[in-house]
């Protein structure tokens, strides 16, 4: 295991000795792991283990008290949200965080915001609209339409997302993240609250994204079956500490992991 952590050259991101506290609550304690280019990396652990907090540290929403983040050769004490987004990190949220008042199409279009040409969508151009802004809109609309058909959500293109069922909302959220053409995609429980069929669809999308676009994926998931099927490597957190790291099979056999899951009532 120590060996696999050494293989930094091909890591797209590594977190090193991260510690994060909220007042007296220590959400993450001295956790290190890396994510390699092109892999699907699962982060698992009981409720409150600090998984979501870890993603929040990675894309700059929480600021860790200690440790550092290596992302594409840059060393950061802490990320800034727009730096992370600009650097190619996109994510979805545990509790869907879509823009409720906007349509599916507009939500996914927001994912393109960093890809747009600043001048073409500057204030005066946008006030006039016809010309550069329209050209830019159509260009990105074409890309977004590809995502829409990839995720099979053509029928709800113009529907305000607030009116969609939960499963579809999660799918739209994935679409918004994909629209940014991320190198690293962080998914926080993408299948929570879905029925079997929806879960299967979601698994398929995740695998396709990984295979077709070569996107690196970090995935938080409670469903062990899904984790075993999808992921290349798994890191296990419990009470803010890393208790295991390795292939799904290794992790499954790890005594610490078994204890952690048995010790906590689910």
């Amino acid at each position: 295991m120590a060996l696999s952590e050494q293989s930094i050259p091909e890591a797209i991101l590594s977190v090193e000795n991260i510690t994060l506290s909220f007042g007296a609550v220590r959400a993450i304690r001295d956790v290190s792991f890396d994510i390699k280019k092109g892999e699907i990396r699962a982060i698992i652990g009981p409720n409150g283990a600090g998984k979501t907090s870890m993603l929040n540290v990675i894309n700059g929403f929480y600021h860790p008290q200690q440790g550092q983040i290596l992302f594409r050769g840059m060393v950061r004490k802490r990320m800034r949200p727009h730096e992370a987004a600009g650097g190619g990190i996109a994510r979805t949220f545990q509790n869907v965080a879509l823009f409720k008042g906007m349509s599916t199409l507009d939500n996914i279009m927001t994912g393109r915001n960093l890809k747009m040409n600043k001048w073409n969508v500057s204030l005066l151009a946008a006030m006039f609209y016809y010309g550069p802004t329209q050209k830019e809109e159509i260009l990105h609309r074409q890309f977004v339409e590809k995502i829409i058909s990839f995720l099979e959500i053509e029928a709800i293109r113009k529907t305000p997302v607030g009116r969609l069922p939960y499963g579809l909302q999660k799918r739209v959220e994935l679409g918004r993240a994909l629209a940014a053409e991320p190198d690293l995609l962080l998914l926080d429980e993408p299948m929570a609250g879905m029925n079997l069929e929806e879960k299967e669809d979601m698994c398929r999308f995740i695998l396709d994204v990984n295979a077709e676009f070569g996107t690196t994926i970090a995935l938080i998931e409670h469903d062990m079956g899904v984790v075993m099927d999808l992921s290349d490597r798994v890191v296990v957190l419990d009470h803010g500490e890393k208790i295991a790291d390795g292939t799904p099979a290794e992790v499954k056999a790890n005594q610490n992991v078994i204890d952690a899951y048995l010790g906590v009532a689910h």
Partner: protein
Amino acid sequence: MEFLNLVLVAPIVDMIEYPSFFIEVVFGGLMSGVMYSLVALGFVLIFKASGVFNFSQGVFALFAALTLVGLMTGTVPFTLNKSLPELPAWVAIILTFIVMIGLAIAVERIVLRPLVNQDHIIMFMSTIGLAFVLEGLGDTIWGSEVKALDVGIPTGNFLIGEIQIQIFDLWAAGIAAFLVVVLAVFFQYTRTGRALRAVADDHQAALSVGIPLKNIWIIVWSVAGLVALVAGIMWGSKSGVQFSLSLIALKALPVLILGGFTSVPGAIVGGLIIGVGEKVAEVYWGPLVDGAIENWFAYVLALVFLLFRPQGLFGDKIIERV
């Protein structure tokens, strides 16, 4: 140099040279501060228990004062005709409180219940609507001319050394303090009061105490109505019951920013700071800019404060999650 002297040195020298005048100014400020505190207190109670930012709290005070005057003068509602028996102050006060409870029930039923779980900003705007309704209603029922209110609080003044003290002000401060103590006891030592505090901390916990949310809201809005009544009485006795009362009450907003939206002591201290601050600023710095800075001083002070401490002096720190 001349400018700095005018702005920084001269006013301070003034204060030190005529301390008794300075103390009188501070006293006057404290008095309006007490009023701001009372209105702010109503805001905080409602905000803590229901998360609603009640813009109409000031109009509540106006409405209560109008009702009180109407009852005391025997006015027949909607007619301006004073042919009913004139009620003694204490009876009228009790009746007005009952009216305020009725109002709380109506507000819960008509405004809050349909809007539960809406965005805070929508709730807030709905209370702006409520303020307009109440203002129009109060004026329609009782008439809109300025009315004198006298519930028997003693007036007059006396001197301590060179400092002139208004007896009315002492009473007002005393009554306000008494009200705060009563509220503190209510929240600390009664079952309902404790339940209310529980709601403020955690809605789920409150439900487990066994009081339905709707009753809690009615109780809190009634208590806020009582606070408004007291504020209305004091303000009305001092400067007449009139429309401007609801505008002055807007000053409770900066008070809240200063004190924090969720803190009762914050409302009180914030009110006093704003009251004193704007009086002192008006008297000592106002003349430099032709006066009337009282109109905006509180807001700008709050604005500057916001930049440094958005949660207020005593408020809870704002934490965000995803």
